[in-house]
């Protein structure tokens, strides 16, 4: 079983520690996406799994076999690079065949494998071209072909879509998802784009400063972010964060004084809240609506309205300066400069403590 297991993986470059004690299990056939801001260590982690960087500390195993000391080629992995890394002096055919050269396959066998791969990726008419004669999307497919042909047990992708334009990116994303289903292989994919992560992953690993902030299914991360970082990173536009202080709390719910002076009542808060405790309320833009509809009401003035057609994003600020984004219907009549009251159901509110850890997920159950 080609599970990938990381136990206590750490890595330093010189005196800077890039990864701290990473523990993770990627199951056979899973599509696991590492996501995080640049410099969070996600690419280093991928390169460690590939064998391009040494393991600083900890144990890495693939399919139950410890691979710390194995060369990349012996790990039964294949990698697709951000720059595609196509050999510019070789034709598409030779690019795809290059990796088979060293595994000692017979010529006819290699040829059959290359042609089958080209068939899958619609590269057959391009086999005799050099990379410079290919479009960005075609190069991307060759890079993927080079990985497929080796029939690895784990595919590694390092931001493979970042060099493509927006339209092609969406297409290729769907192609990769299809490929994953078709091959039923384990895939590990690095990106900084949370949309890519949400759409492709069966498991998302959010990394920040070399630590795993949270790992789980996309919707689990969306509905039950473990801390403020994950809450802010997953979802677009970002979750609104409003500072507040607990006034009173009992079995029925909690009263919380917000930074702009208003007070709000939340029902059925499962966490123990002490009066006077500092908290942060998190509400996603799509869970708010204009008007007095819910128990959590906020009043502010509108700075700008972006009309996308299917929705309008309203950007406003509260009396204390907190910025709030609201997703309202496409035909919303809100105008910039006007005053607006927005509200949310108490079930849509995430509560975080002063350290940014989630207190209670009273949000819509996953």
């Amino acid at each position, binding site marked *: 079983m080609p599970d990938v297991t990381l136990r206590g993986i750490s890595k330093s470059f010189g005196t800077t520690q890039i990864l701290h004690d990473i523990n993770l299990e990627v199951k056979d056939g899973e599509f696991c996406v590492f996501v995080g801001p640049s410099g969070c260590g996600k690419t280093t982690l991928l*390169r460690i799994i*590939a*064998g*391009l960087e040494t393991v600083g500390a900890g144990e890495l195993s693939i399919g139950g076999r410890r691979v710390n000391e194995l*060369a*990349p*080629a012996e790990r039964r*992995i*294949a*990698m697709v*690079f*951000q*720059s*595609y*890394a196509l*050999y*510019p*002096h070789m034709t598409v055919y030779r690019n795809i065949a*290059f*990796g088979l*050269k*060293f*595994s000692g396959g017979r010529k006819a066998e290699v040829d059959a494998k290359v042609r089958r791969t080209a068939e899958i990726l619609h590269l057959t008419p391009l086999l005799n071209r050099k990379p*410079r004669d290919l479009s960005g999307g075609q190069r991307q497919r060759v890079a993927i072909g*080079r990985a497929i042909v*080796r029939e690895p047990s784990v595919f590694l992708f390092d931001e493979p879509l970042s060099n493509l334009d927006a339209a092609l990116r969406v297409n290729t994303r769907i192609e990769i998802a299809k490929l994953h289903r078709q091959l039923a292989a384990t895939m590990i994919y690095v990106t900084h784009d949370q949309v890519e992560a949400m759409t492709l992953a069966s498991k998302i690993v959010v990394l920040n400063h070399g630590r795993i902030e949270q790992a789980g299914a996309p919707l689990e991360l969306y509905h039950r972010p473990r801390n403020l970082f994950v809450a802010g990173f997953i979802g677009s536009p970002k979750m609104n964060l409003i500072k507040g202080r607990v006034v009173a709390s009992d079995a029925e719910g909690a009263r919380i004084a917000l930074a702009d002076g208003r007070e709000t009542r939340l029902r059925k808060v499962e966490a123990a809240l002490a009066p006077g405790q500092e908290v942060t309320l998190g509400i996603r833009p799509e869970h708010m609506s204009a008007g007095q509809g819910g128990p959590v009401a906020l009043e502010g003035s509108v700075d700008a309205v972006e009309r996308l057609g299917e929705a309008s994003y309203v950007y406003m600020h509260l009396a204390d300066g907190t910025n709030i984004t609201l997703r309202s219907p496409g035909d919303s009549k809100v105008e910039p400069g006007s005053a607006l009251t927005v509200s949310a159901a108490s079930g849509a509110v995430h509560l975080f403590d002063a350290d940014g850890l989630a207190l209670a997920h009273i949000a819509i159950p996953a």
Partner: protein
Amino acid sequence: MGGDVSLAEQTASERRRPWSHILVFLAPAALIYTVFSIYPLLDTIRYALYTQDEHGVAHFAGLANFVDLFSLPVWADQFRNALVNNLIFFVIHVIVQNIIGIALAAMLSLPKLFGRNLYRTLIFLPTMLSVVIIGFVWQLILSPLWGVSEGFLKAIGLPQLFAPWLGQESTALVTISLISVWQFVGIPMMLIYAALLNIPEDLVDAATVDGANHLHVFFYVKLPLILPTIGLVAILTFVGNFNAFDLIYAVKGTLAGPNFASDILGTFFYRTFFGYQLQLGNPTMGAAVATMMFLIILIGVMIYLFGVQRRMQRYAL
């Protein structure tokens, strides 16, 4: 030149600019370059078609100088000798220089190499110095009088290897070629080093993931990608070698001894032009030799431009 400005192709903002600017900017360079470089080159070729009588008056003589150069034993033997020596000089350069240059560059381009800049700077140092000075330095070192090299070979247990390399007919040319390689190996090293650094790390990583070891990576990925640079080094060396003069003049003098064993086209040209010992100089024959050198270099450059460079296009990395 350059004064004739085509207005039709210009945009409105450019049209307001009078052509006098262009002329003023170009004139100094074009003038000096034309008068002291291009004109003398063309005039030399023209002059090769003349002969001088005993009063120093030049007469048009067609290809007479070239016919003499190829058929009169006085000229032809020396010309052939110089040409063959020059070819040997070049071949030694290309082979030894590229092998050492590639090896040094490959080592210098290893990731996280301690002291990289210092090595590079020091190894390049001889390239900066005058060929004449280098010639004298090696003449002293190889001199049996001083005995430095003899002592050195004794110290490493190979005293029988010592010989007056610069003085023997059989070894003079090879020795001088190797001195020149020693001096200029910094150039191929530097250019190949830069070319190696330009190969994206992703390519090497990809090959590693594909199962290639260090040697595979070098021969299948890196070497093909630095071939254009090696071609460039070869043509630069070719041009430099076929008008070389200083080193042999410094080490062996005008006669390129012993017995013309180290004579190349540059020294042959100088002797023909200025004469030596009792032999008087012959400017028109000198011009003919220069014209031949010009043709040889031109052929070399053409082969490079249309034969080699075309085939080894640089890859957009």
